[in-house]
């Protein structure tokens, strides 16, 4: 039996888990009503249970006390009995499908923000500021320590009374427990610090109090890091000692291991490894912990496909594999393995759109799966075949919007033709994948390619669509997703028309050879500008990336910009903020870029041999306006129906001719998720 190791049940405490795959705790940012696990929350997890997952540990950083604020990240609030009935709904939904559910509980100590809601004073063993959240804090007093220990016990009781299967004490990510562990932030000289036992005491008392409260039949685990990766922090050997210490108490049922600490921007990026990392980069740390403990060891971090999971489990490195982002991308991952549909698994590509939203306090969403966490709205993971008329659907453009539109329309059972003027699918994803360390983003296209082939979509690659070609197919519906072009014409003084500047697409697509001395001007500050600068530096160019915004790459999320910096600093890429590109002119065989300081108006010049401008995407609207008048709906999308996940009313209105919709960057520049979401919610009712 293929993937047999994944489907070996496992005993954790008194609990039997049906397979070796779990979704580890992550902050969802879905709890509402003061931190309750309401409908969206339950449906999000239920989908994983339906999909066959063994265990989900929900609620990353769910708080046990009101001075560990839950509001910033809409996390789950276990400081009140109000949570109990909500947990019962959650537990029922999971158990109904045979999955188990636990929750991570914590007091975050200094790792939070104080400037809102209850305006708490944050607490930490020695009052040392936390840099990622710029969080200052007080030194916690023994009375508060004992109070927080009691809060943990009560929170665990609420989880148990709510019918959950266990709790995971967070001692990772520099929460209160591991703040006490780490000599880097615990400078105390009283019984709560100093010696090894002193630093362990808080965690031990929490564990004792929790175990006393919930008894032996309830699962209690702990999530720890494998190595903080700070010279003054806890090393792997320290963590082995700590793990063995708590394991020896006999009060723990499992240990989850995360490689890397995360109280700096750079270490944070390790915790949720993006596409620049190799597979399972920190497995060795988890395996090291497993060497010294008796309880099962759980480990996530870049475990994305069943072959990888099987290899890890067969090797015996850990007892369960966390496939957390893998399940955000495809909650039916397990079911698809069991159905022999491994090729249909939508695999996580490590774009980290999910976690980068979470760190901004936004709900976790998947860059490529717009149904994830929208189950409660009726956005489907499995597109049911239409019972209505079979339609001829023509999609123009093979980028993310077009590919999703074609997929969904084909799943509905329609006859779908897709035009793409390039020789391959992918659109801007293909361009994005050309940059160093960004190749895996092309995994989004790979999945669509397989699905469109499976669904027999008529792919017309290398074929630009015009009105006649489209009309020839006698379409019932036309979906335009033909994107746009780099917006270089916005400032005529850049000299794009004279060839003085080139676009980031030209460089990444290989249409223009990299220069030797290059100025990249990036007004957008997202991935493309950083990618093209990194790409050029990688090809040996001397690169300066300049923006009129605060800093190049400033709009890139917290787990992704560090990996760009790691790549670009060693190549001596200069990153300059606050300068606007006024104009470019030629002087001999050189180009002169005139830059103006945003705040002083002072001008500077750069003499270079290539100027690359990243100024976003200008929609291509010609085809749309050529088709608009002839369409039954005049190209309009009914936004009320769209937002309510309802069918477009025009689909059922009688009439001759075609309906016309446009989605993605051919309307206005947004992002991959927006393109895919619009395609899904629009086409799911075709």
């Amino acid at each position, binding site marked *: *039996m293929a993937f047999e190791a994944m*489907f070996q049940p496992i005993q954790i405490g008194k609990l*039997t888990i*049906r397979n070796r795959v779990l979704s580890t705790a992550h902050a969802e940012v879905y709890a509402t009503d003061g931190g309750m696990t309401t409908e969206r929350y339950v449906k999000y997890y239920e989908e994983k249970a339906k999909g*066959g997952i063994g265990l989900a540990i929900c609620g990353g950083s769910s708080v046990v006390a009101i001075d560990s604020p839950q509001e910033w990240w809409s996390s789950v609030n276990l400081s009140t009995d109000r949570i109990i009935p909500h947990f019962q709904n959650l537990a029922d939904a999971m158990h109904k499908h*045979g999955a188990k559910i636990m929750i991570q509980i914590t007091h975050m100590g200094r790792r939070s923000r104080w400037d809102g809601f209850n305006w708490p004073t944050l607490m930490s063993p020695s009052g040392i500021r936390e840099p990622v959240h710029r969080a200052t804090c007080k030194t916690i007093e023994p009375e508060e320590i004992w109070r927080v220990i009691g809060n943990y016990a009560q929170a665990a009781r609420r989880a148990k009374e709510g019918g959950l299967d266990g709790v995971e004490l967070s001692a990772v990510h520099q929460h209160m427990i591991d703040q006490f562990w780490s000599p880097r932030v615990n400078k105390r000289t009283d019984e709560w610090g100093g010696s090894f036992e002193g630093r362990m005491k808080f965690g031990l008392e929490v564990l004792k109090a929790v175990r006393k409260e919930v008894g032996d039949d309830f699962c209690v685990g702990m999530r720890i890091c494998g190595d903080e990766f700070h010279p003054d922090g806890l090393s792997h050997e320290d963590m082995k000692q700590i793990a063995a210490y708590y394991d020896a108490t006999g009060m723990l049922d499992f240990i989850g291991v995360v490689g890397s600490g995360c109280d700096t921007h750079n270490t944070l990026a390790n915790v949720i490894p993006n596409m620049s990392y190799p597979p399972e980069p920190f497995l060795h740390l988890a395996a090291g912990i497993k060497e010294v403990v008796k309880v099962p060891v759980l480990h996530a971090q870049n475990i994305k496909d069943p072959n990888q999971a099987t290899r890890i489990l067969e090797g015996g490195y850990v007892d369960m594999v966390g496939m957390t982002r893998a399940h955000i991308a495809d909650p039916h991952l397990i079911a698809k*393995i069991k159905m*022999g549909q491994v090729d249909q698994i939508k695999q996580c590509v490590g774009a980290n759109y999910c976690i980068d939203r979470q760190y901004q306090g936004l709900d976790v969403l998947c860059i490529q799966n717009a149904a994830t966490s929208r189950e409660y709205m009726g956005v489907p993971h*499995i597109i049911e075949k239409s019972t209505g008329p079979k339609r001829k659907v023509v999609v123009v453009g093979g980028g993310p919007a077009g590919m999703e539109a074609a997929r969904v329309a084909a799943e509905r059972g329609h006859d779908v033709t897709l035009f793409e003027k390039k020789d391959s699918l992918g659109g801007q994803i293909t361009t994005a994948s050309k940059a160093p360390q960004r190749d895996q983003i092309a995994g989004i296209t790979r999945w669509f390619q397989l699905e469109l082939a499976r669904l027999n979509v008529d792919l017309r690659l290398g074929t630009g669509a015009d009105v006649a070609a489209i009309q020839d197919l006698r379409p019932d519906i036309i979906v335009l997703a033909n994107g746009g072009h780099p917006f270089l014409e916005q400032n005529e003084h850049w000299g794009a028309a004279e060839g003085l500047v080139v676009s980031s697409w030209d460089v990444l697509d290989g249409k223009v050879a990299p220069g030797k001395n290059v100025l990249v001007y990036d007004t957008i500050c997202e991935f493309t500008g950083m990618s093209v600068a990194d790409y050029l530096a990688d090809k040996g160019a001397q690169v300066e990336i300049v923006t009129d915004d605060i800093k190049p790459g400033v709009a890139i999320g917290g787990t992704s910009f560090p990996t760009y910096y790691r790549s670009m600093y060693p190549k001596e890429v200069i990153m300059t903020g606050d300068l606007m590109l006024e104009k470019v002119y030629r002087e001999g065989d050189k180009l002169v870029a005139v830059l103006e300081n945003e705040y002083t108006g002072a001008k500077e010049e750069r003499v270079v041999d290539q100027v690359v401008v990243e100024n976003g995407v200008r929609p291509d609207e010609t085809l749309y306006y050529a088709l608009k008048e002839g369409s039954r709906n005049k190209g309009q999308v009914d936004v009320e129906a769209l937002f309510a996940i309802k069918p477009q009313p025009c689909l059922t209105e009688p009439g001759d001719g075609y309906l016309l919709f446009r989605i993605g960057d051919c309307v206005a520049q947004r992002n991959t998720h927006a393109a895919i979401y619009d395609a899904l919610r629009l086409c799911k009712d075709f």
Partner: protein
Amino acid sequence: MLNTLLPILLFAALALAVIGAGKRFLMWRRGRPAQVDWIGGLLAMPRRYLVDLHHVVERDKYMSRTHVATAGGFVLAALLAIVVHGFGLHNRILGFALLAACVLMFGGALFVAKRRRNPPARLSKGPWNRLPKSLLMFAASFFIATLPVAGILPQGFGGWLLAAVLAVGVAWGVSELFLGMTWGGPMKHAFAGALHLAWHRRAERFGGGRSTGLKALDLDDPKAPLGVEKPSDFTWNQLLGFDACVQCGKCEAACPAFAAGQPLNPKKLIQDMVVGLAGGSDAKFAGSPYPGKPIGEHSGGPHLPIVDLNGKALVDAETLWSCTTCRACVEECPMMIEHVDAIVDMRRHLTLEKGATPNKGAEVLDNLIATDNPGGFAPGGRLNWAADLNLPLLSEKKSVDVLFWVGDGAFDMRNQRTLRAFVKVLKAANVDFAVLGLEERDSGDVARRLGDEATFQQLAKRNIATLAQYRFNKIVSCDPHSFHVLKNEYGELGGHYQVLHHSTYMDELIGSQKLHLGKHKGGSVTYHDPCYLGRYNGEYEAPRAVLKAIGIEVKEMERSGFRSRCCGGGGGAPITDIPGKQRIPDMRMLDIKQTGAELVAVGCPQCTAMLEGVVAPRPEIKDIAELVAEVLLEAPAPAKKPAPAKREMAEVQ
């Protein structure tokens, strides 16, 4: 002159026939002893012939009527001829009766002759093409010779010339029809066939009974050979059965391995056994060869090994390993010959004595011995598929209504979906059930069909000992192979149970209103009869009734019911994997596609695996349990709130 010649001819032929019969009888008796009811069998024979055998022949109306006329006419004519012409009882009425018999026979023989003008490939040629001429000659000769007896023609009409011609005709006729019966002509089928019916090794088959379980080897008897090495290792009545073959080729036409171009033709195999029992080569065989194996290269004798693993003997080993044990040949055989028994007997020798189970065979048998399952999976994982279902264990409950026999599909991800669906149905119907869990072992089906009788008996005895510890009313299984073995083959080893296929049980649950079912949504459906459910156990109705109950109108395949074509998965055939020109499941999928159905309902893990192995695009394959589980409705709430029946959430695993 005729009055002198005819008795001589008749009695000489009869005498020679009797001598031949004696010789033939002694040939059969070279086989090992078998317990038969000598007298009872003979007494029962006419009924077996006229009812049971006729029942099979009757499926082909043309042939049935032809045979009734020809054989009936012949028997009557022969008896009357002996009386009238042999004993010279020239009674006019007898004369007319003989004339009528000859006319009847002649009429029948004309139809035989007609069929022989463009005979289908399955029919043997050679002497079989001569037979209608002999029949016509016999009938015509006696007709003319009898006309004077009936007073239609004067005595001595035609003089010596006609007498000579008639004498030649009669000589030809009685040679074929009297001598031929016992000296190896086509008419041998009548003589051997009648005795075969009388002393059949599965007398239970007559009178509407069914007997399909393989017969156990007595492993404790040091004298009994371990299977059949040479023709004389068959029991004597098996040898007799081979001799009954009419070479009609109905078996050949039904055999999936033959159609797939694998080196098996059941008719040729039986004829090779006939060659073996008498000694000689297959050169005179006038039918289709084993695909890919020219005629004339094989020979054998009663005391010579049938298979030579290093060269050629009577039959090549791969011929024996091509069989899927689907019983289509046995089902079709108008002489009720037991092909599958013979093949397994010969496989037993190859496996038990020679260790020559081909391809993955040895590995599978080793796995069964070491791990109690053919896949070699860690036995501790037998219940992994249900880790989240909280299945009641029989070891804890001790006594239940239904023992759910899971089978080795427990280790197969695809079949786990079927099992889980069936559990859902059992739970929805509030059935008092349990599973054996880790106490269950492979039923022994594959081991037995691969000839490893020892491993079969070992597994069976262990299962029987386990089952003896508990109380249950019935065993239900989703696997027709386990079902068949438990129901029909454990009895001989002391295990007697009421065993039901899950389709039968679901039909009962539906009949007693234990299930609240919606209607199947989706496209059209056809149904594939598993061999071990249908032909082996006669269950054709329950699966169809269940499908009907969920709103499915089955689009039947041309080959369905007792004529269902095997999926290719039985008898260890996928394990021994003898190459052919095409794959059996591909052919079955063509049958399925011809119905235009979008989904094929199945009731067997082997069929599921074989059919799902056919490359797409092809119809979807679902077990009946999955189809039922999909339309389960939540029971109406017993409380005062009469909630409308709601559809269960789709379970994706």
